[in-house]
């Protein structure tokens, strides 16, 4: 492989990894805190993307569209937690899963109804539509922006989790819910917050990623598989671990497509299976 191709693919892999991070960070946090697998998380991503698209078409403002996408995700996350999940915590673990599965089916048809099934591509804003010249290698500026956005979200999340009072409360909840409740922390409130935050980031990622991934029917079911892969490979409880996993999976998928095109869609899942069998708690997981 030529060096220029290798560098381009490397950057593609990192950009994909950052999108995976936007998708998986929230899911990982929910899994760690509430012990639920939210199968509707991919739907927040897709609905966020579509909402952003509508706002972009309506106003022409890309930044506003990003916020609209993220806000629609957060709203869905809030509704899910407040009106559905809250009723099934502490039940057998298949009830929350199936409830979120049902929700993902509803949102899938909802998107089909509102935005029809025609595949859509979002154009990057004009100030990011050019390519950047790196000594003869041209690389789209928009993908650089995605990498930058991923790093920024990671930094903000890390700061939130490690340095703020709310972050400390979330960490306490992940560690020991009963003790945190005993110390007077309003755990249901924390659950809602984490749901909103996770869905906010997913909605954000959905729109930011739409110029690369496109928007089409079934996108939700495709990305939820990637998000689950992130959660199980990375393990729960470590944000830097989550980012590292996302980059690993993004690179593996990208280079998989280069080297064994026919089996490329399997690359990530082969990693998932191997990691779960060898290290069930995940590569960076603190507990099983």
């Amino acid at each position: 492989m030529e060096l220029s191709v290798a560098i381009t693919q490397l950057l593609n892999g990192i950009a994909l990894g950052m999108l995976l991070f936007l998708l998986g960070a929230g899911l990982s946090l929910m899994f760690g805190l509430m012990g639920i697998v939210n199968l509707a998380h991919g739907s927040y991503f897709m609905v966020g993307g579509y909402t952003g698209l509508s706002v972009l078409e309506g106003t022409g403002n890309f930044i506003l569209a990003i916020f609209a996408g993220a806000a629609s995700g957060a709203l869905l996350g809030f509704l899910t937690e407040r009106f559905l999940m809250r009723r099934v915590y502490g039940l057998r673990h298949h009830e929350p899963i199936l409830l979120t599965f049902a929700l993902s089916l509803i949102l899938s048809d909802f998107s089909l109804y509102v935005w029809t099934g025609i595949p859509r591509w979002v154009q990057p804003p004009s100030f990011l539509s050019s390519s950047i010249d790196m000594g003869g290698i041209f690389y789209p500026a928009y993908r650089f922006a995605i990498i930058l956005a991923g790093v920024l979200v990671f930094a903000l999340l890390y700061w939130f989790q490690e340095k703020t009072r709310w972050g400390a409360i979330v960490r306490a909840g992940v560690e020991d819910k009963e003790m945190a409740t005993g110390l007077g922390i309003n755990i249901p409130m924390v659950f809602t917050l984490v749901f909103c935050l996770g869905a906010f980031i997913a909605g954000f990622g959905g729109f930011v990623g739409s110029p690369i991934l496109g928007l089409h029917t079934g996108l939700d079911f495709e990305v939820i598989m990637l998000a689950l892969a992130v959660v199980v490979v990375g393990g729960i409880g470590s944000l830097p671990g989550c980012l590292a996993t996302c980059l690993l999976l993004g690179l593996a998928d990208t280079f998989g497509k280069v080297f064994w095109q026919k089996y490329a869609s399997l690359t990530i899942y082969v990693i998932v299976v191997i990691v779960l069998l060898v290290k069930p708690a995940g590569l960076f997981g603190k507990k099983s």
Partner: protein
Amino acid sequence: MTSDKWKWVFYAVLGIVLVILIPLSPRYVQTLAISIIIYSIYVCSTNLLTGYTGLVSLGQAIFWGSAAYLVAILTTHGVVKNFYLVFLIAILSVMIIGAAFGVLALRAKRLYFMILTFAFGHVVWSIAMYALQPVTYGFNGIRDILRPDLGLSWSLENNSNFYYFTLAVGALCFFIVSLIIHSPFGRILVGIRDNEHRMIALGCNTFLYKFLSYIVSAIIAGVGGILFAYFNGYVNPSELHWVWSGEALMMMFIGGIGTFWGPALGALVFTGLRYWVSAYTMYWFGVEGTIFVLVVLFFRGGISGFITDLPRRKIPSKP
């Protein structure tokens, strides 16, 4: 004794409807009944694994779809024509796939088990979709699967004959599951579902029992898949998709999880509703999801739970 009496009334009515009334009904009723029975078999296999053993799997479609694909590939490519041989090959293959995935997946617990089955499901789906495209025709699926020839003078091209055939296979599957859940083996599965640590403390090799339950459930799902391929005449990758595994869980839950008739009730409601709703709207997923949310929020025992709770609800009798 009254509950026993009602039980026999139920069986008698069920028998009359299934054996006499449906074959006399118009063709579309028969077709609907055939799909209900086939889906019942599939949901029944899920129920054995999830309802009785407590293992939530999102990979049940692997076995349904693999069996269906094997039938499709073997018959349309003219490799094997004999129905009994096709059946045997499909079942053995599903058993081997089940054993391989079971050994691996059961090393993980609870949600990790579910995600692992999910990953396996995706691997198998990708293989059918991309890797084996020359054989499976990828997204387009395999068409023109002919009805099986049993080697009898009794042709399955005839719809009501095919209905009787499906009914017989379905009854056999339900009978086998009934034997399993009432046997000591089945009681151990329920014990594992309710408290695995206690079963381990009692000296039970829970891995072995879960493994056997996984394989039996795979085989039953495979039987459903075989019938489906012959009935539908067309197989595509959505039969292997994890959403179809999720729908099995939903049907089981709607019917009543961990109850004997739950899968049949769930499949009946699911298929009937889909038939009825499809006449009005293309958004079946939305309707299905909404109904399921309502069931989880308000009728947690599903239809079976609702029916068995009826006598206990204090309905004031007329003075």
